[in-house]
């Protein structure tokens, strides 16, 4: 199978779906000649022209608002926000308009749109260009939240997101753009709301998503050489969350660690733990459930401070060792 990058996988999904469906278009800042801040839409202007690669003024509120409006009348817009942090300028159309139109109109409207959100730290971009805000987005009924960890998942999930009749926030981790993975040629989709066991294990379940899947996998491989068997469960879709997959895995391993880059307070790790504590999986726990998350701090600029603010492989490894050795 050919290997392509996470960035190329997202690019290919958009290109292929735009060829198939004339209602799909991309809207955002600097997505044309520039190719997008992270180069995801490179070359798309030449193929699809300025109508469907719709470059906007720096107006995040109006970009997401326009996507919602277009979606309500039959289009399938993909809005690219340059950095996930900027979605805070556009929460109003996302949360008060797109998320609620169907419900408050009694099921008589659909809003099929995708908002692509490059998020996460690790690039030295500091506090306003490095956040992981998925927990905020997950809080609003009517919105789906997807956060792929591999090139393969990114392509299959984005195709499903574009075809989904609901507003979908598609969280792309900036450090993953260059990561390569096997992606088959041709069309395939991955259903939203279905988690994936990225590494099978029996001693502990690590529930995670996005870049933390890659970090957790590296740790799982290392620990397997010592006979510690780590199951890495990649949620892939954060809302709707595949709660059954979490329950099944915890019942098997008896231990749970939730890892995410987003800050701890109000973060979705608490949601995962609530799923376990209120299900039959609770009776299977052999140790307290733990979470390893971003610290409750704005992302700092200095490289050492930045790395200290979010979970690293060493932190994940230490936490797993502590849990499996019944330290807590």
């Amino acid at each position, binding site marked *: 199978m050919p290997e392509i990058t996470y960035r190329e996988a997202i690019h290919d999904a958009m290109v292929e779906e735009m060829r198939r469906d004339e209602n799909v*278009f991309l809207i955002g800042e600097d997505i044309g000649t520039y190719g997008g801040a992270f180069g995801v839409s490179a070359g798309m202007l030449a193929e699809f022209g300025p*109508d*469907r690669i*719709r470059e*906007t*003024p720096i*107006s995040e*509120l*109006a970009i997401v*608002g*326009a*996507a*919602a*409006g*277009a*979606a*309500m*009348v*039959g*289009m399938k*817009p993909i809005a690219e926000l340059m950095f996930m942090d900027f979605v805070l300028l556009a929460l*109003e*159309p996302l949360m*008060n*308009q797109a998320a609620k*139109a*169907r*419900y*408050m*109109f*009694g*099921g*008589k*409207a*659909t*809003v*099929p749109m995708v908002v692509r959100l490059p998020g996460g730290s690790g690039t030295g971009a500091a506090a306003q260009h490095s956040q992981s805000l998925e927990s905020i987005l997950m809080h609003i*009924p*009517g919105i*789906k939240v997807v956060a792929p960890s591999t090139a393969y998942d990114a392509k299959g999930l984005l195709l499903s997101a574009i075809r989904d*009749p*609901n507003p979908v926030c598609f969280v792309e981790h900036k450090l993953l753009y260059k990561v390569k993975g096997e992606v088959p040629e041709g069309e395939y989709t991955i259903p939203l709301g279905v988690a994936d066991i990225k590494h099978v294990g029996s001693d502990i379940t690590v529930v995670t998503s996005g870049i933390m899947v890659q970090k957790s996998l590296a740790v799982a491989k290392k620990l397997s050489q010592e006979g510690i068997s780590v199951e890495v469960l990649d949620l892939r879709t954060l809302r709707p969350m595949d709660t059954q997959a979490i329950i099944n895995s915890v019942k098997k391993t008896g231990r749970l660690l939730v890892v995410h880059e987003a800050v701890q307070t109000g973060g979705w790790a608490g949601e995962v733990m609530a799923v376990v504590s209120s299900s039959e999986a609770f009776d299977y726990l052999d140790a307290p459930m733990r979470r390893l998350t971003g610290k409750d701090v704005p992302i700092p600029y200095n490289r050492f401070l930045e790395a200290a603010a979010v979970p690293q492989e060493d932190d994940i490894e230490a936490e797993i060792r502590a849990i499996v050795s019944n330290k807590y």
Partner: protein
Amino acid sequence: MTTWKKEEFDNFETTDVLVKSKELGLKQEQLVDMYRTMVKIRLFEEMADKQYALGKVHGTMHLSAGQEAVAVGTGFAITKGDYLLNHHRGHGHFIASGADVNKMMAEFLGKETGYCRGRGGSMHIADVTANNLGANGIVGGGLQLAAGVGLAVQMKKKEQIVLTIFGDGAANEGIFHESLNMAAIWDLPILYLCENNQYGMSANVARVSAKTPFKDRAAAYGIPGYYIDGNDVLAVYEFIRNAAENARSGKGPVFVEAQTYRYFGHSKSDRNLYRTKEEIDYWKSVEDPIIRFEKLLLTANLINDQSISKIKEEMSEVIDESVTFAENSPEPDVKDVMEWVYA
């Protein structure tokens, strides 16, 4: 605190409906129909207020009595199939665009037979199949969506326009700038109708707006703007029709600001502490859009006391029937509370 000046209006006041209607190509029956629709809206709003007073309404309401000429002049001027994005005080525009008052009243009373199956209430009445994309509970909500609807129309090469109606309050939201700028750079077929009723809740336009009329702000984006007497129904009809034609012709967005006045408070919590009784009485007696149009129609002999009474009786029956329909309709089934969160 007066913010409006008649001498600034871009329209000439309608003084002779026969001359004016000939100029506009309106038939005499259409003039009477406009009058009838204004009466219908007034009666609907008064009935809504009464239903609230009787304790039959669970939520709030934003009534548009006093603003009927804007709704009717606009409703008669736009084309069926044009998209409508409305503000929260939207009953009048929906009635003027042909909405079913039974379904509106049922929605107001939260019933399953309402436009939104009782999920939305007065603030979210919508009829998506008729391209009515809803009233909006967020000030400037329609402005957020307008550029996207306009973009869809333009990309699909359709002949529709997007009418987005918002108040003087929304003109001070940030989205006002983003939306107008976007519409202007892409020549989107959008008709921006600023319904200036002089108060954003209790905030007088002059106190919260650095520069009026708001049409001057449209000029900043190169969008043609007009400031008109929103209580002169034929002036509204004339300017909206011309603006709609302009937007439809591919020349880009147009901006119309209609000056009017609301009689009821902002919503049910309003005790009218921010304006004088004299001011309200002035608008109700001298500027009332229905009385003004009625006088002109009487002078032109298009109606008489007898036909006025008949129209009022008929419309009153229609509104009474809407209450009966709503009252006899079932409540939504609580088992369905989770329906339609996702498609």
